[in-house]
């Protein structure tokens, strides 16, 4: 028997002092949950992992046809499929992480009402699941670049930074919606709507440079504009300019959403088992 006699005190309204330490202790659970969802996702499917490749690829083809061939939008000297795919990467990551995290608490209600662990583990692992798909999509990106003989420059090295920003955006919004969804199931309906709507108001199928200069700051109120522009800036190299005021605005918004999301989640977390 171990002699680790740490005393745990349970009291009303006591903010868990060991919360972050507990979160670390439960890191394995976090990976197990992500691993479970990845494993389960393609069980009993005929072509399995091909779905993870096919979906973004088909979306890219359709977007290229519609925005480049039909609408004749400019690409700034970059092959249009690459322009689209550089934006699809963060967008698909964000949308699946956001909707996964938003649903995560409710779909794991059984666990929440029967076992203790830092609840943050659940939405966080949902984001990781989306990240696995993101990594698979990166393979397509590399394939596309080779196909079009597109050479990235050194900016490519900054990509992890923007991936981190995308993470923060997905996590922040995901936490908000996950916590709200526990109490108000309305958010179950809002989530798919936000995802669908977001695709139109984010520069996925087109470059944000076609937005008139005077509207760009306003346009950057959509945090995903900053993330997508960042991805394009890093991947497409010298052909793109980053609109800094807009990017910083998006960044600031993401930061605010993430911090308030964590705070709100922590505040409501204690009542999850009672209301879920």
């Amino acid at each position, binding site marked *: 028997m171990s002699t680790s006699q740490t005393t745990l005190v349970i009291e*009303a309204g006591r903010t868990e002092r060991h919360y972050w330490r507990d979160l670390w202790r439960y890191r394995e659970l976090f990976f197990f949950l992500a691993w479970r969802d990845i494993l389960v996702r393609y069980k009993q499917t005929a072509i399995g992992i091909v779905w993870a490749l096919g979906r973004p690829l088909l979306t890219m083809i359709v977007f290229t046809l519609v925005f480049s061939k039909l609408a004749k939008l400019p690409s700034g000297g970059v092959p249009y499929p690459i322009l689209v795919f550089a934006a699809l990467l963060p967008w698909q990551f964000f949308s699946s992480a956001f909707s996964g995290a938003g649903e995560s608490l409710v779909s794991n209600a059984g666990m929440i009402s029967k076992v203790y662990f830092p609840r943050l583990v659940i939405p966080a692992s949902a984001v990781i699941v989306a990240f696995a798909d993101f990594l698979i999509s990166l393979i397509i990106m590399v394939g596309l670049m080779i196909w079009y003989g597109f050479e990235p420059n050194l900016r490519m090295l900054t990509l992890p930074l923007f991936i981190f920003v995308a993470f923060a955006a997905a996590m922040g919004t995901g936490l908000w919606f996950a916590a709200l969804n526990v109490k108000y199931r309305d958010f179950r309906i809002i989530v798919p709507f936000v995802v669908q709507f977001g695709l139109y108001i984010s520069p996925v199928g087109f470059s944000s440079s076609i937005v008139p200069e005077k509207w760009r700051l306003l346009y950057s109120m959509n945090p995903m504009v900053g993330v997508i522009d960042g991805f394009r800036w890093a991947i497409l190299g010298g052909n793109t300019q980053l609109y800094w005021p807009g990017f910083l605005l998006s960044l600031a918004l993401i930061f605010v959403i993430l911090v308030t999301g964590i705070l709100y989640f922590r505040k409501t977390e204690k009542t999850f088992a009672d209301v879920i």
Partner: protein
Amino acid sequence: MSTVISVESLSKKYIIGHQKQERHDSLRDALADGAKRVAHKLAHPFAAPQNDPTHEEFWALKDVSFDIKQGDRVGIIGRNGAGKSTLLKVLSRITEPTSGKVSIKGRVASLLEVGTGFHPELSGRENIFLNGAILGMSKAEIKKKFDEIVAFAEVEKFLDTPVKRYSSGMYVRLAFAVAAHLEPEILIVDEVLAVGDAQFQKKCMGKMEEVGKEGRTVLFVSHQMAAIQNLCQKVIVLNKGCVNYVGTQLEAVSKYLSLDQVSTESLISRSDRRGTQGMRIVSITFVDHAGREIKSAVSGQELGIRLHFDRSSISNYPKIIASITVKTDLGVPVFLQHNRLGGYQFGPLPSQGFFEFRIPRLPLPPSGYRIAYSLINDGTYIDALSDAAELVVSEGDFFGTGEVPPISHGLSLVDGKWSVQSIQNSQNTWIV
């Protein structure tokens, strides 16, 4: 021995909504309520905040205090709704108390459900790892115990089969096996042993005893008195959210039996009914051979049990099946009776009346009994309640000899004839 769990005036309050049917407040309600409150505040800035009549406070736990020493095996008993599960949930940090304080020394593992987080699509092997992680085991720990777990669950052959293809017995065995191999200093277990076949239950009890003998502390909630008596040295009796008694199991069990058997609220206001409620049982009465109402019965007497009903549905339920189950104080069923067993159909029912079940000679030994009823029409429940009424049976002359065996010797009194026969001599000697 040092105190490992110390609970000081612990309380937990729930707010129960009355009118609203759905469990989750909708966003619209929240917004509308918020707006109303603001409007009210603006109109009457100095008025006291309004009390919402649709919400009522319910204290699941009230001022609960006790201490548990290291190595104690403690049973928690109480009727449904006594606060047992809430207490375990607070102790295992699933829900926060409203007031009070709990201090726990050592690593806690709680097992409120068998197989939490099991995923039907994953194989047995994968679920062992997943469930272990959910219960707080590290990957290394699970790996170390893996073979032991598999052997305990007896599922070697099906390790790589998705658990959705498991029989329910295998599923439960696997789930319990994972939990049984946790090595916490304090183990909290909710009625999980009520699953699986008898042999496996025995195995589980053995495992739990072992855990206790290793000097670990066990908290165990159960309805099964036998399990509590087997496993626990100390028992806490909860009643309506309060601690009724803490002490040795022998006294606790008798304390438990002396609690109000049937909830004191009148039958008509019970809200835990099942069924469509097209018709309700509003009271249950007992009558003697002449139809006079009696409060308690004696063994061997003629007894009528009346279920008084009030029908609100237009349908007059001509094919209704009215059934009663009589259980002992400890919840062991003694018998079930319904009109179909005797091939009897009531035909169209009046809007008010009573069903009567008549027992010519009551075959129950002296004790307290609880009665559950159900009304079923065409396979759907109309109304059903357990613990709907209490029947006290005192000693009576069932056999006509003045002697009645106590309930500890058997749940029912059976009339019959004894004889002795000699093999050489075929002549019968009857002793009546």
